């Protein structure tokens, strides 16, 4: 009989426990055993689990994966799908390429997460693993068990980062199908401002399973723009736990672009924990061939007077599957909440599938909440109109698709990044 996956993964940890914990302070390693316990209690969700019906997580993890607990690989020119502007951190297969941490005169710190844990443990320990949800998401708990390194960004109180941060996560498997765990911790303290661009790139012919957890904290009146793109080649399974906690009066503008590559499962949880927060969350995915993108977004309005707005667009073709589950939770006291959610999808082939499911859970009575979900085809009238002006049918369709996605792309942070991402999206449209 086959051994349960949980047992196999637990054993993987226990038999490599020394290697995994090496160079990491004990307070971090102490979290691993608790997370392992959570992981075993939760167990990896089966596709019978309503929240995971569109992605078979168990099958993903059941593959023949090799895991190395030491740094390997390098960054290549093609990994720069977004230009390495400003403050750059490069992470390959879970390890930061440089062990060093950069500290600027104004107090900004960025670089290796592992280095930060060791050198400024007092700061990191305030946030690390405090935002991620190890209690409910097994894949996040598993990440906490295994993660050894990643990217760290720290913008202290009142500091405005002059340049954008560019974090690149490369996952690559050249010889063996590989499983890797990586982590990002981004802290923008009270009144601070930052602009962060994150790229998940790489791929490889041998297959890759990348379990990534991103924790983001914005302090009182902090402002953060964050743009995250996944653009990988080959068979890549990505499991992302994106956690965001916002304090009073903070504002976050986030754009996520899932431009393709294998199977992507995203659990994005935003906690609006202080009054008068604003959270604008935009997403765009493309899926064709046999690709799958499964986005599960939760926005928790925990306190009164916060505003959230979600817009997630998808384009599916071939036999691809796109899924969006958007949950908005409004706590009993969270009066005067404004929460808007929209899911818009275009289905280019009859064999492609789109699932979209808004879920509102509202326990306060003075709120403005709305949601909308559409799944449609190309507007043939618009194609005819454009052809009547001389555009070829292909150009008309391309232009229309670009028009469909442009309102998400145009919200990307940083002009250089935006321009480059618009180009990537355009290239994706040409393939659809």
């Amino acid at each position, binding site marked *: 009989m086959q051994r349960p996956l949980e047992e196999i993964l637990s054993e993987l940890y226990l038999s490599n426990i020394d290697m995994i914990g090496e160079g990491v302070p004990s307070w971090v390693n102490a979290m691993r055993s608790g997370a392992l316990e959570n992981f075993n209690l939760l167990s990896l969700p089966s596709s019978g689990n309503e929240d995971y019906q569109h992605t078979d997580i168990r099958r993903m993890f059941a593959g023949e994966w090799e895991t190395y607990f030491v740094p390997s690989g390098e960054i290549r020119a093609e990994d720069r799908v977004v230009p390495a502007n400003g403050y750059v951190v490069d992470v390959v297969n879970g390890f930061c390429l440089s062990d060093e941490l950069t500290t600027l005169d104004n107090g900004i710190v960025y670089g290796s997460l592992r280095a930060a844990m060791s050198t400024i443990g007092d700061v990191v320990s305030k946030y690390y693993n405090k935002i991620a949800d190890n209690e409910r998401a097994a894949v996040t708990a598993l990440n906490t068990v295994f993660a050894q390194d990643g990217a760290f960004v720290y913008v202290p109180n009142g500091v405005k980062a002059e340049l954008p941060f560019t974090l690149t996560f490369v996952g690559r498997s050249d010889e063996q199908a590989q499983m890797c765990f990586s982590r990002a911790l981004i802290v923008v303290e009270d009144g601070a401002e930052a602009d962060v661009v994150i790229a998940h790139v790489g791929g490889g012919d041998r297959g890759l399973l990348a379990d990534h957890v991103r924790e983001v904290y914005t302090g009182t009146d902090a402002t953060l723009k964050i743009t995250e793109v996944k653009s990988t080649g080959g068979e890549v399974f990505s499991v992302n736990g994106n956690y965001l906690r916002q304090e009073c009066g903070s504002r976050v503008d986030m754009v996520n672009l899932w431009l393709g590559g294998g199977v992507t499962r995203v659990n994005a949880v935003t906690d609006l924990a202080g009054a008068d927060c604003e959270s604008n969350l935009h997403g765009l995915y493309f899926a064709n061939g046999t690709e799958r993108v499964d986005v599960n977004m939760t926005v928790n309005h925990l306190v009164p007077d916060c505003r959230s707005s979600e817009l997630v667009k998808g384009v599916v073709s071939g036999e691809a599957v796109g899924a969006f589950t958007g949950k908005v939770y409004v706590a009993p006291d969270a009066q005067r909440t404004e929460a808007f959610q929209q899911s818009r999808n275009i289905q280019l082939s009859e064999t492609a599938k789109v699932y979209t499911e808004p879920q509102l859970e509202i326990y306060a009575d003075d709120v403005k909440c709305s949601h909308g979900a559409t799944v449609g085809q190309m*507007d043939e*009238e*618009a194609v*005819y*109109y*454009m*052809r*009547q*002006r*001389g*555009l*070829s*049918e292909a*150009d008309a369709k391309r*232009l*229309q698709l*670009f*028009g*469909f*996605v*442009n*309102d998400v792309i145009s919200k990307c942070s940083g002009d250089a990044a935006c321009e480059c991402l618009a180009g990537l999206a355009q290239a994706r449209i040409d393939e659809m």
Partner: protein
Amino acid sequence: MLLEVKNLHCMVDGKPILKGLDFKVGRGEVHAIMGPNGSGKSTFASVLAGNPKYEVTEGEVLYDGVNLLDMSIEDRARAGLFLGFQYPVEIPGVSMANFMRMAVNARREYLGEEPLSAADFLRLMRDKGAVVELDTKLTNRAVNEGFSGGEKKKNEIFQMAMLDPTLAILDETDSGLDIDALRIVANGVTKLKRPDNATIVITHYQRLLDYIVPDFVHVLYQGRIIHTGGKELALVLEEEGYDRIINEYNK
């Protein structure tokens, strides 16, 4: 002849709409097509533009001596056939400037001309925008998105000016326009008139023809042109309706 339509028949969803339509347009001419609701006016315009919803079952259309019905929608447009839509389509997220640049350059390529430089294109946008008093803000917006009815129609004439067509077909461009917008649209069309191009105006009302003076007025009824006259025919129709002409035809 710029356009020769012979015995044109067409169907929509299995229902015959045009039933042997004959029609000719020479260069430098302005033709008005009038007729009661459901007579096939818009269908005729759509068939000329190549709308795939309409199936031509019989007849011939020669455009500048070439079989128009064999041409794709876009090649008809590139060859200078322009349709001003009765209901212009909104295309969210697609800027007017981007759309027009592609359209203008597609036509230029077809004519064997070099694409316009960015500066020349912007100059063209500004100059042609002035023809229809189109707010430059509108040309920065997405195609027809959030435009008022009048703005959409002005935008059609703006696009016509940009593309400099050989044969322009204006399908009820006057519907839904107030008198000022009507004047602007009509003046735009008049300004674009040249000895080597031609215009077909499809309209319900005579008032547009006060501004765009036609050389010929045709009455379309039950899928055929049943009567043709000069510009004064429009006034007669306004006065007495279509009944007399239809009755004569039915005899």
